[in-house]
């Protein structure tokens, strides 16, 4: 009975799933395919395979300047948000202080706050404090908005850490500072890398906050957006394809690291180890 009903329902379910996946991924497929189409974005079906748009792209210095800007902003944001996020996560994990639950909420707030609010308020802050919108303000904006991501990831990492290891370190004569550098941080390595990759990816394609804070130097998403206003060219498809490929690569790495850091101390994992050794 159950079996026959699942068999009856399965084709519909499969069809539904196909539609959902098509809805999500077909536009990306189209984007990638047309980056290799000689006749540009017009015309169906695509004809005349070419790598010409990639040649055009590689010669386009303003695109590459914006890529460089984005990389600088992303790298700096990773450094600052990981640094501050680690401190916040440590405070949440081990310090007891009045207003801790309020602090937790405030730290995590930017995660759900609309980018437009973050961007606008940071712009006003920049204006009040006499900062000119530039890559520096963009970097501050990204780092501020992404501290919450770093805090969440690192807090999860700290929660999994076996505190007896830190006690063992103190017991063996290491100062709290030595213990932090030699035991706590190495144990957080996977969480740090995972959080870093996630923040890097989020910063690379951030538009809303960036839009309010940008000066004369465009980041890549804003450069693409600016060009779209003048009409779409396959060169945009080409750079978008490259972004897509590198984003997927980063996310795959992030996913694997996360699975490793989650699974490394699980009982099943240890059992398997015990059986093989």
């Amino acid at each position: 009975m159950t079996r026959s009903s699942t068999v009856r329902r399965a084709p519909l379910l499969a069809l539904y799933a196909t539609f959902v996946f098509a809805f999500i991924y077909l536009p990306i497929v189209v984007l990638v395919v047309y980056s290799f189409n000689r006749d540009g974005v017009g015309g169906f079906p695509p004809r005349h395979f070419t790598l010409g748009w990639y040649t055009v792209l590689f010669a386009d210095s303003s695109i590459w300047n914006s890529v460089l800007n984005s990389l600088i902003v992303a790298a700096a944001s990773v450094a600052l948000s990981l640094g501050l996020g680690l401190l916040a996560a440590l405070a949440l994990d081990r310090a007891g202080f009045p207003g801790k639950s309020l602090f937790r909420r405030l730290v995590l707030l930017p995660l759900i706050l609309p980018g437009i609010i973050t961007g606008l308020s940071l712009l006003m802050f920049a204006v009040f404090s006499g900062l000119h919108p530039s890559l520096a303000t963009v970097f501050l904006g990204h780092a501020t908005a992404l501290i919450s991501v770093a805090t969440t990831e690192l807090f999860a990492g700290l929660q999994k850490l076996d505190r007896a290891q830190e006690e063992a370190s103190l017991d063996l004569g290491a100062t709290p500072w030595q213990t932090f550098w030699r035991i706590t941080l190495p144990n957080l390595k996977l969480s740090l890398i995972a959080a870093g990759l996630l923040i890097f990816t989020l910063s690379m394609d951030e538009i809303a906050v960036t839009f309010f804070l940008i000066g004369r130097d465009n980041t890549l998403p804003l450069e693409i957006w600016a060009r779209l206003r003048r009409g779409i060219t396959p060169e945009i498809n080409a750079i978008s394809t490259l972004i897509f490929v590198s984003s997927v690569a980063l996310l795959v790495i992030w996913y694997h690291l996360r699975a490793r850091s989650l699974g490394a101390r699980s009982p099943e994992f240890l059992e398997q180890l015990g059986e093989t050794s």
Partner: protein
Amino acid sequence: MSAFPANPPQELPAKSAALLELRNVAKRFAAVDVLKNISLNIASGEFLTLLGESGSGKTTVLRLIAGFAQPSSGEIWMSGERLDLLPPYKRRVNTVFQNYALFPHLSACDNVAYGLRVKNTPTSEIAARVEEALRMVKMQGFAASRPARLSGGQQQRIALARALVNRPRLLLLDEPLSALDANLRKQMQGELKSLQREIGVTFLFVTHDQEEAMALSDRIALLRDGALEQVASPREIYAHPATAYTAEFIGQTNLLRGEIRGGMVTCGALRWPSDEADGAVIFSLRPEAIRICADDKRQPSEVRFRAAVRQQFYGGSSELLEVDCGNGQTLRVRVPVGGPLAGEQDFVFSLCDPTRVAE
């Protein structure tokens, strides 16, 4: 002007032979008295075991000595130095943790070297001492292995080497064998004991296993609900338990509750003469003190009684009987292995066997 030196040695502990001294140590956690006024001396080179049920406070004692917790009141002294005011990393005490707490990102060798490295020991000395420590626990072949690659027993050895390489004055061992299976456990007990004899380091060993405590210790400190019940050598504590709790916790016993009246002890069906004062009494009578009596010769120094065998548990080297002396009074009797026993038997124990214990 005084003729005495300006700094009289007032701060020295009363007994200078003690390596470690707990003076009236108490610990409260959230309005619960985990430890109540513990005073205990540990002599240099001694193997002292803190024995107790889970929740008796034995691990808390270790954590206070290691410095992971602060006593609510009282003082801890080590070799004439106040220990409880020092942070954990300044105490010359090392711990073998219950689940070893090895550093997973470091090899066995780096785990052992850790304590020496953080104290900036010269590299050549580190290499020599780590090798010596690994040899001591027979783990030379595993220097490069990560902890996850080692078995429980091997991790245990590395944890031991990691602590001993620092040449602590006092080694704290928190139920170090509880995670091992029975056979390995027996083997490690033997190795631990001979290692302690060999290097002469003072061991403070925590366990809930009374057999383990008896087999290894010079002295046992029995903890009950955060207070010391009795501190004595295994032989002393077994032969002369101070309280009913101790008598039942260490080994098996029969607790005989009764009274003394007019020079006669009466505990149910059992009666024997005594010159102690009248009043309620509890005696501990070990099962092996009772024998089956085959002949009819009555000795004045013995107490005879008749009882029915209810149960017989075969134990390989001996058998445990549960016998009924009438009126529901049951006793446990350990006898040499013989044939099956049934029905009424004559039993006997010597007058000097029952040990009077406090409630």
